[in-house]
């Protein structure tokens, strides 16, 4: 007899969330390897370790809901439904990528999925999200718009201005601070004067919540409440997700600023996928073999994405000059 499901999602939805988190993890682990081999040009910032936040929030969203992401955007993209193969092609700089090789890792977008773009400029997504939320409010669509920032970019003027604008216009906008403890190499505590982002939220006249961002269900529950509130006209909120970053700021970062053993401890004790697996198997809702089956399928998908990315054609000289204007 099946165990009673104590979770706010049915079994199929739980399996889907696990699959998405696992896809993000394996996507990033593979990029770490391929970048190290020299296969990938440019800058790559990996989201591994932070999956529960992206998926816990995005599980509440549809394609009409907009998000603006960060330089560390792969996880947001995958959770928002952007095609993994097109993403991989983009990161490899190939035709058929999300941006036909013109954007790269930091500029993946798919407006049809409500993904307004990863962003190379820290804090730049916040004003854009105000605009998306304004459009939703103007059209009475019931959609929301969510801005992701790191703890570092939360100190940008654009972000702080946007909190105020969203509050005074009562926009269906949500501001998620992904607090992984580091602004690049600088500790959060060094760069941010207040201990709690909830205090900052109240300073802008909006509710704020802090959750353990490695706990999928904590994120899911908190995000669900503020998203519902925003959809119903209750205005903006802030959500701080405390999390860990498994890799460096960028690939190639030697991470000498970390304490000895910090990465190993994070992998051992703060792995959101392990926590999720323990929760759902512990409750007897999903079996370990079911999760293992997903793991295997995801590895196959990532392998296929890399194979397709490597085989995809390079952009040509003609591509250099297109897509600047709609007409000129």
């Amino acid at each position, binding site marked *: 007899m099946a165990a009673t499901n104590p979770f706010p999602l049915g079994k199929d939805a739980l399996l889907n969330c696990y699959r998405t988190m696992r896809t993000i993890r394996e996507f990033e682990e593979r990029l770490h390897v391929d970048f190290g081999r020299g296969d990938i040009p440019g800058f790559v910032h990996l989201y591994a370790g932070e999956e529960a936040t992206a998926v816990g929030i995005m599980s509440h969203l549809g394609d009409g809901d*907009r998000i*603006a992401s960060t330089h560390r955007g792969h996880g947001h993209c995958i959770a928002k439904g952007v095609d993994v193969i097109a993403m991989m092609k983009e990161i490899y700089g190939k035709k058929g*990528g*999300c*941006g*036909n*090789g*013109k*954007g790269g890792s930091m*500029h993946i*977008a*798919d*407006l*049809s999925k409500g993904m*307004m*773009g990863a*962003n*190379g*400029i820290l804090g*730049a997504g*916040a*004003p*854009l*999200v*105000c*605009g*998306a939320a*304004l*459009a*939703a409010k*103007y059209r009475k669509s019931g959609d929301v*718009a969510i801005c992701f920032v790191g703890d570092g970019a939360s100190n940008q*003027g*654009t972000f702080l*201005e*946007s909190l*105020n*604008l969203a509050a*005074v*216009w009562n926009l269906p906008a949500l501001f998620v601070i992904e607090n992984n403890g580091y602004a690049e190499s600088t500790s959060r505590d060094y760069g941010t004067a207040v201990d709690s982002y909830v205090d900052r939220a109240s300073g802008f006249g909006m509710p704020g919540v802090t959750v353990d961002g490695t706990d999928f269900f904590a994120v899911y529950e908190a995000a669900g409440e503020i998203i519902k509130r925003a959809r119903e006209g209750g205005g903006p909120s802030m959500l701080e997700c405390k999390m860990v970053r498994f890799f460096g700021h960028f690939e190639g970062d030697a991470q000498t600023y970390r304490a000895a053993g910090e990465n190993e401890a994070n992998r051992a004790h703060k792995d959101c996928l392990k926590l999720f697996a323990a929760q759902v198997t512990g409750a007897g809702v999903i079996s370990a073999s079911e999760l293992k089956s997903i793991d295997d399928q995801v590895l196959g998908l990532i392998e296929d994405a890399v194979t397709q990315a490597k085989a995809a054609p390079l952009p040509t000289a003609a591509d250099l000059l*297109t*897509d*600047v*204007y*709609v*007409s*000129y």
Partner: protein
Amino acid sequence: MARKISIKQAINEAIDQEMSRDPSVIMLGEDIVGGAGGEGEMDAWGGVLGVTKGLYAKHGDRLLDTPLSESAYVGAAIGAASCGMRPIAELMFIDFMGVCFDQIFNQAAKFKYMFGGKAETPVVIRAMVGAGFRAAAQHSQMLTPIFTHIPGLKVVCPSTPYDTKGMLIQAIRDNDPVIFCEHKNLYALEGDVPEGSYTVPFGEANVVREGKHVSIVTYGLMVHRSLEAAATLAKEGVEVEIVDLRSLSPLDMDTVLDSVTKTGRLVCVDEASPRCNIATDISAQVAMQAFGALKAQIEMVSPPHVPVPFSPTLEDLYIPSAAQIADAVRRTLAKGKQ
């Protein structure tokens, strides 16, 4: 049916007609309505110089007064544009680009390219440009070259009421981000403007005066200074041709080259600071593409490489005058092949 209205009225009328035509057009800016949230009158200002006065009565909350947060509301206009709206953001003075430029040049200008062509950002950013208002160094600049430098932006700067209305309607309907520059010293200029809706396409320069001896290539307020200079020179038997670029990006080099090929002499006049401005750009392109047509070296008239001064005495010295333009024309006529 055309009648005479000012550039200020032409802007108001263009926005009014487009808001009536298309519900996706909204407008955001500081004090564009005026009096929001206070106990006094709404629409108290209609913009800091009254350009949008009266639009609130017709279009209500589609005009949004914003907090003094240029990054947030210019960015919001860009974000809304990427979600299918057609926002007009008023930046008031173009000098304020310094606090919101990232949203314009790293976001709006680049979405289409970075996203492989799959984004459209139909936003208009209106801003006052130019000196002559005794407004000093932070409210008087002609920053057109900075925007023209950025691929992905369109930049226009009309000089007449007719062009202003037609180009603003074109800007609102255009599917690319447009920087719409309004010279504050031309707001009161009146001219014939049709009552109905029409567009003036971008990338088409206008020969506002025909002549055979020297070509002046310019835009904005300097079109009028050049016309004054041409009137003086006509009395000396010199016939100047004046090309009003109107649109700086896209740029109509064909009309410039045709004129220079005809006259053989070129004076570029630009109110922007002299280094890397529109005049230097036009000069370089003419030197590359029509060197053989030139009978003499190219002349340029721009302000000195200093911030815009406050004192009226200094500001009047700063802004290129009709006399300076006429002198440049005389210099080029005295040099080279006769």
